[in-house]
Every structure is written in C-alpha cells, then in structure tokens.
C-alpha cells in the first residue's frame, strides 16, 4: 500500500509531534475557511484510512472557529487505481460516501501524505463517477515532493523535502492506535 504503512526499521527521525500536527491542521482549517466563503458547500472527503480521520479533525477545527458543520465523506481509491495487478498486494476496496448531488459543491480531497500524486488522480476519477462537483481542492498533512503527475495541493500541513528512498510514516491515534506522530525513516 502506501509508503507510510511500512513497518519501522532503522532510524526514524521525528518530524511532527501531536501538538505540531494539531497546529498545522488548525492552520489548514483557517485557510479552507478563507478560500471558501460558502462553507456549507464544502465537503471534506478523506482517502481511507488516515485521510478520513484527518478530514474529521479539520471539520472539527472549522466548527470550533466558524460554528459551521462542514460535511465529510470518504473516497475509495482502490478500485480506481491504474496499477491493479502490478502490485504484490491487491488494495482493499471500501465503500465511498459522498453527499449527493455533487453539483455546486466543493470537494476537498484529504490525505495524509502527498507523494507521486497517483492516489489523488484516482480520487478525482472516483469523485467524477458520482457527478460533476463545482471544484475539487486538495488538502494534505505532509507534502513530500516527487510528483509523477501535474497535481499540486491547495492546503499543506507541512512541506517535507525527502529523498526517494526515504519513508514518511504518519501515525494517528484513531487509525493506528499509537500517539499522533510523523516520522521520516532514512534509507
């Protein structure tokens, strides 16, 4: 699956602790509010499993700040990947959940780490099969570079320059049962 799901081996450098993650997601929430005057039209759609949790957290920050409940959703990308059969493990497919109709809505795709951009490409394909949203934006906790597609994030928790062989590990309490942390494992 994703780079972030690999087991720890060798030295992992701590990049963000729980407080830093909290701070950057709160900032992302502020930026989303600034960029989207019609917050009631916004849907924060997470890519399973950490993207879903991050979307929920951003939605809670937006509620704290603006007292508005932003809708959340889930986008399955597994069945939209273009590399089925070329990987050793078949991705587990999950049900997508998006409020319908998508027309007039702004879908903000939320994921933990942005790397090649292929997952986001698959997410956009998945969204388009539900309808035609007014716009799609992208929010990520970590942008580690090395894009293979012309995709850029609209909201970034932290830019983290990495080398190709390094692994970014994101751990979240709710999805991993470990304290919130971002680590960089050197190659």
């Amino acid at each position, binding site marked *: 699956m994703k780079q972030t799901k690999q087991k720890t081996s060798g030295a992992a450098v701590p990049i963000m602790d729980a407080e830093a993650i909290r701070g950057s997601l709160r900032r992302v929430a502020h930026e989303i509010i600034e960029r989207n005057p019609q917050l009631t039209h916004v849907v924060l759609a997470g890519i399973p499993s950490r993207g879903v949790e991050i979307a929920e957290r951003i939605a809670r920050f937006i509620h704290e700040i603006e007292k508005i409940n932003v809708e959340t959703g889930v986008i399955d990308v597994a069945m*939209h990947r273009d590399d*089925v059969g070329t990987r050793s493990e078949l991705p587990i497919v999950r049900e997508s959940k998006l409020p319908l109709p998508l027309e007039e809505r702004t879908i903000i795709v939320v994921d933990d780490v942005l790397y090649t951009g292929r997952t986001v490409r698959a997410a956009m394909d998945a969204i388009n099969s539900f309808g035609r949203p007014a716009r799609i934006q992208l929010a990520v906790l970590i942008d580690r570079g090395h894009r293979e597609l012309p995709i850029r994030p609209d909201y970034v928790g932290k830019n983290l320059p990495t080398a190709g062989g390094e692994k970014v590990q994101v751990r979240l309490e709710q999805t991993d049962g470990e304290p919130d942390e971002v680590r960089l494992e050197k190659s």
Partner: protein
Amino acid sequence: MTTRWTRKDLLGLRELSADEINFILDTADAFKQVGTREIKKVPSLRGKTLVNFFVEPSTRTRTSFELAALRLSADVINISATISSLTKGETLKDTARNLEALHADIFVLRHGSAGAPQFLANRLKASVINAGDGAHEHPTQALLDLYTIREKRRQIAGLHVAIVGDILFSRVARSNIFGLLKLGARVTLVGPSTLVPREFEKLGVEISHKIDEVLPKADVVNLLRIQHERQRREYFPGIGEYIRFFGLTKERAKLLKADCLIMHPGPINRGVEIDSEVADGLHSVILNQVTNGLAVRMAVLYLCGGISA
C-alpha cells in the same frame, strides 16, 4: 481487516475459510455502491479480457457476470456451447488453451460436469471462476445469497436457514450449505426423501420432509427451482403432488415468522415451488438477490482477476 485474498480461482465455497467468505462479502459492499453512482463503472480491470464460457445454457448468470465485468471495465467475450468448437469434437482443454492463446485473463465457466472448472484452473495461468459445474458447486450464487441474508439481517451466525426442493441435484444447495455452515448458520434441508437423501446429514445439516414443521422456525427460506423440464418422474410423482407437500403456497406463507426472508435463485416457477403472492410479497428478497449478484460477482472478478495478473 487483516485477511488478504490470495486465490486466482473461485471454484467452490467448500475450500474457502469463513474469513475469506466474509472478505468477499465486504468487498462486494464497496462494489454494490458503484451501482448507485451516476457513472456505474470503475477502471479496476481495464485492459483485461474475460471469457464467459457457458457450455451449459444460462441467461441470468451469464448476463450478471457480463455486466459485472463491464462495470469493472474488462472486455468480455461470450462463448456458448452451441457456437463453440466443443460441438465439433474439440476437448475442453484445447478450447481453453486456444482462448488463453488470445490472452484472456479470466474464464467464467459453466459446465455440466462437476470438476470442470478445477480441471481448467489446474492447467491455465488465467483465473477460473466456477459459474456452476454439474451438481457440484455454484459459488457466486451462494455468495449472493449469503450477502443478501447478511444485508437484511446484519449477521448470519445463529440464523436458521431452510433450503427447500431439489437438493440432490442442486449445486446451489451445496454451495449454500458450505457457506452457511462456515458462517455459523443452522441449516435444514426440506424436500421429498428421494431429493433430500440422509447422506446430507454428514455435512452437518438437519433434514426434514415436512415443510409445515420447518416454516414457523425459519429465519430464511431458500426455495430451489423444481427443474420440471427434466421431468424427474422417478423422484416425485408429479408437480401437483410436489405443490401439495412442498410448494410455498400463500396459505403456507402464513406460517412464516414476520421477518422471515424468502429467497429463490431464479428463474421462479410461479405456482410450483412458490405462489405469485409470496414471490411478490413482503418476505421476498428475490430481486435483491439479483442486484446483489452483480456486486458479489464484481467483487469476485476484482479479487481473482487482480491476483492472476
């Protein structure tokens, strides 16, 4: 979910674990939702070729597999017994090898002989999906039955399922028995002793020849089609006799629990194994089965087809 799918073929439910069955059903949940989207198609099997190889005639299973494959963006070829070279004396193996030489990735096989899918699976690199082999197994039918029960009742363990009718020759019954028992259901087979022999007890099911005693206790009644076109005169005296003892008439339906599910793999013989009022009534989930069949077959093609590459 820690289970991983590792099989290139789906030949029967007998060899699957409860975890594997649940994994297919969970995967089907995700694919069921694709049918409600504006664009009911995903690119999962884009570039793959599926051969619907139906040596025995079938319309609904073949159509369901075909639509499932199309919704996964696979290319589909349909080959039936009458147009295949099998009628010219070519062996099953040679026909399949010729198809594999065309780079087919998935074979969906319906065949009159038990074990034919296993035979092909052992010889081909491609995935083989059993769409019914003789009186052996029909795994996707049983999976869609399990899916429908789970969808309506949330859990299969602890439910009492009655399977009624021509059990002896039924691959649907066999696959259902394996699947239901693995998932913890209690199974009672109901029918005349000629069609429900005692040997089945060895599988771990109960047997009854009195439907009126079973109906009030059942959470699910799965009615199998009486294959009267085959006129099994040696097994029961006639249709009238069968209806009198085993048909789910509207009078008998009054014995059912309020939340009992009535299932049927189709095509139904209205007025034979089931009355029209019951087939179209509140208990009936027969059309849900058809819809769910598509999702389950998408899941099976995705899992097996994704592995074989």
